[in-house]
Every structure is written in C-alpha cells, then in structure tokens.
C-alpha cells in the first residue's frame, strides 16, 4: 500500500487550493495534489502516492518504472478506482 507510482504532469490548475494537477500514469489520468512539491512544473515527472506528489523523478527512471509496473501486473490497480461521484 505504500507503493508510490511515477507519472507525468499534464495540466496544473493554478487557481486551485490545494494546488491540483492532472497526472498521467501510463495512460490513466488522476487528480494529484502538488502542495508538497511546489517546484513541480508542467510535464515534470513526479512520484505520487494516493493522490499526493512526493518527489520529482527523472523522466527515464519514471518511464522504466511504469513499464516494469505494467509487466508486474497488479501495481497499477489502485489507479483504476474512479473519481468520486
């Protein structure tokens, strides 16, 4: 459960509080809070855990990790939960 997953910031809602972004995890887009990573910018790769970005990640590292998670099957399952209705 403490697994954090790297993804790419596709959009930042500058007016939001907390600062929220759309992050792409190998094709799955989730809302992610950037408050703990103020230096993160558009198209940066960030390590995300349960909707909160924790640290920036090098692009090559992020892509390799996502690919490995896809091969391992179940690591990305938690991202499949829908947004709140």
């Amino acid at each position, binding site marked *: *459960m*403490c*697994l*954090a997953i790297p993804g790419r910031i596709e959009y930042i809602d500058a007016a939001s509080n*907390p600062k929220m972004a759309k992050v792409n995890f190998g094709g799955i887009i*989730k*809302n992610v*809070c950037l*408050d*703990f*990573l*103020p230096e993160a910018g558009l198209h940066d790769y960030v*390590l995300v*855990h*349960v*909707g*909160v970005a*924790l*640290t920036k*990640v*090098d692009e090559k*590292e992020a892509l*390799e*990790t996502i690919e*490995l998670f896809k*091969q*391992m099957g*179940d690591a990305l*399952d*938690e*991202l499949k*939960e829908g*947004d*709140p*209705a």
Partner: protein
Amino acid sequence: MKYLDEFRDPIFAKSLSENIHKVTTRPWTIMEICGGQTHSIVKSGLENLLPSSLSIVHGPGCPVCVTPLEMIEKAILIARKPNVIFTSFGDMLRVPGSTSDLLTVKANGGDVRIVYSPLDAVTIAEKNPDKEVVFFAVGFETTAPANAMAVWQAHKKNLKNFSILCSHVLVPPAMEALLSSSTNRVQGFLAAGHVCTVMGYEEYIPLAKKYNVPIVVTGFEPTDILHGILMLVTQLEEGRCELENQYSRMVKKEGNIPAQQMIFNVFEISHRKWRGIGEIPKSGYSLKKEFIHFDAEEKFSLGIVSVEESPLCIAGNILRGLNKPFECSAFGNQCTPESPLGAPMVSSEGACAAYYNYKRQNVASSGSGMVNKKH
C-alpha cells in the same frame, strides 16, 4: 538464473546476485520492513538468486495486516449506520472482522466506497452534505501526508460531515520493538524507501548505532532489493552498522519537509496497538486535540470494542519474522486469500498471501506444520 526476466536490468541483477554470493561467507538473517518489498521479493522469486545461507524474513510493514481487529470491527459498525458513506482504500474491504467485513456490509446495502485518495473522500463529503462521510485512514508515514491533507482541507472548507477512522502507524518504533525483543533474530534491515521519501532517514541513524544493526534504505523493484541486500550483507561481513541509502534517486536525507509539516499540523505521535504484535509506545499518529471533531471514534461514540483473534493464526510470529507463512498449520488449508483467518493472508502485500499467490510454500520441504526456527 531463470528468474532474471522479472528484472528491469537483468545484466545488472545477475551481477548483483553474483556479488552477493561472493561477499557472503556466513549465515545472516535480514528483514525487509515494507509489504510492497515483501510482495516484490516473493513475486519475482528473488530468493532463488541468493545464497542459501541468507535468510530473508518479512516484517510488519503492511498497514492492512497490522491494523487491529478492533479497528476493523469499528469500521464495520460505522459503515452499517444508515446515514453514513464509508470510504476506504480497496485493500481494507476484505479484511474480516469478528463476524463480517466491509465488502459484506456493502453487499447488504451499506454505502461503502473505494477511493483512490483520501482527498476523494473529502470531495464526496462536499457533494453529500446530508450524509456523514468517514474515511478509513490507515497507513504508514508514506500515506500520512495525504491523510493529513484530507483533514486539513475538511477543516479549511468547514465540513462538519467528514471524519476519519485513524489507525496510523510508524516504522522506526516497530523496528525498535523488534530489535529490543529477546526473540529477535534480525541482523540487518532493508528500510522502506517510500516511507523515507516522506520522512527522510535521519531517525534511523541512532537506531543503527544503538542496536548495532546495519540499515539500508531500499527501493521496491527487484533490482533495488538485490542492490539493498548486497549493501546490507557487505556491511554485515565487514562488521559495520551504518545507515546507507540505496534509493538515493527518490530519498533525500531530510525527506519532504512540506509533507512533514502538514502531518504535524494535524497529527501528534501516540501509542498504537499493532495487530499480532500488541501496543508499541509512540508508534502511530492520532489527531491533535484541535482536530478531534474529525475523529470518527469520537463522533460515533464507539467506546471499547472487544474481539477475538483466531487461535490457529500465527500472524504475530509472521509479522515479527519468527516464522515463515508455510510454517503455519492453517496455511493454504483453513486459511487462504478467499477465506483468510488473519490479516497477512488478506492483503496482497501480506506475507501469507504473497506466499500463497506465488506458490513459494515449496521453499519448505516440510510443507505444513509449524516449525520454530532458532538461530
């Protein structure tokens, strides 16, 4: 080397494995703390790449596994209430309480919803002002910033209908409890990488010194874990007991300071009971007094709920690294992921479920029957 396909860089993994064989001259027992690492070790068959004299034991770092049965029972009691939307990470839904589980409450008409993030639970509370929305806030330090942020946002938005059922635990006090136990057999630790992404690793340095135990902050991929094991065994063989960081690409010494500030805006350190282990002093987070109106235990006046564990289950020994799952008499027969007796069989990060799912029980030629290994 038939398992190397699972590794991101098989050539590097092969070289790590060869080096571990080269440096290991004596038997050592090492523990990975985190359930994510347990899952990765068992799934990748990583132990097949290690010398037989290295014993890898699996620690208490699965939040689903160590959440006390009383808390599961409280979650079920709250989720059954008619005006409640009970929200949780998916892995908590199948954990059995004394008579039921959250999934059954949902099947019987309870409004139980899986959320990806605690912030989603806050959104649900905003959209349903006539309902009480409760989030099951379990986890280690990695999850604490998100849970703290959820409470902080509910506070900012002045939401009266949001609360959390809090069962937050911390890694260093659990390591200290294991190390100070007379039954301890762990000689070195792989510390949990993502916990340290949040908290940094300074609090592990005095632990390494006090208990003369090397600690290596380690990532989650099989190659990371092999690398962490090599660093740990090298320290053990050289007689060093230091804190080292294998996962420096994700972990800084000081951690994520804004995330830590948010945790301590909302939470304070408290005693916590760990399932299978018992109470460990100062081993968790509870809401600070000024946020106590967000505490579901207070809001729903639950009081003391008493429950009994299965007498067959040896989860406590599993979580302390004293036994492997296949050494339990119930493993794979009375206790399976479909019908679990104890929490390590419920979560995919629990050691028992990982062994069951990936058929690692064959490691033991003894099959079933509890064996007390003594070193």
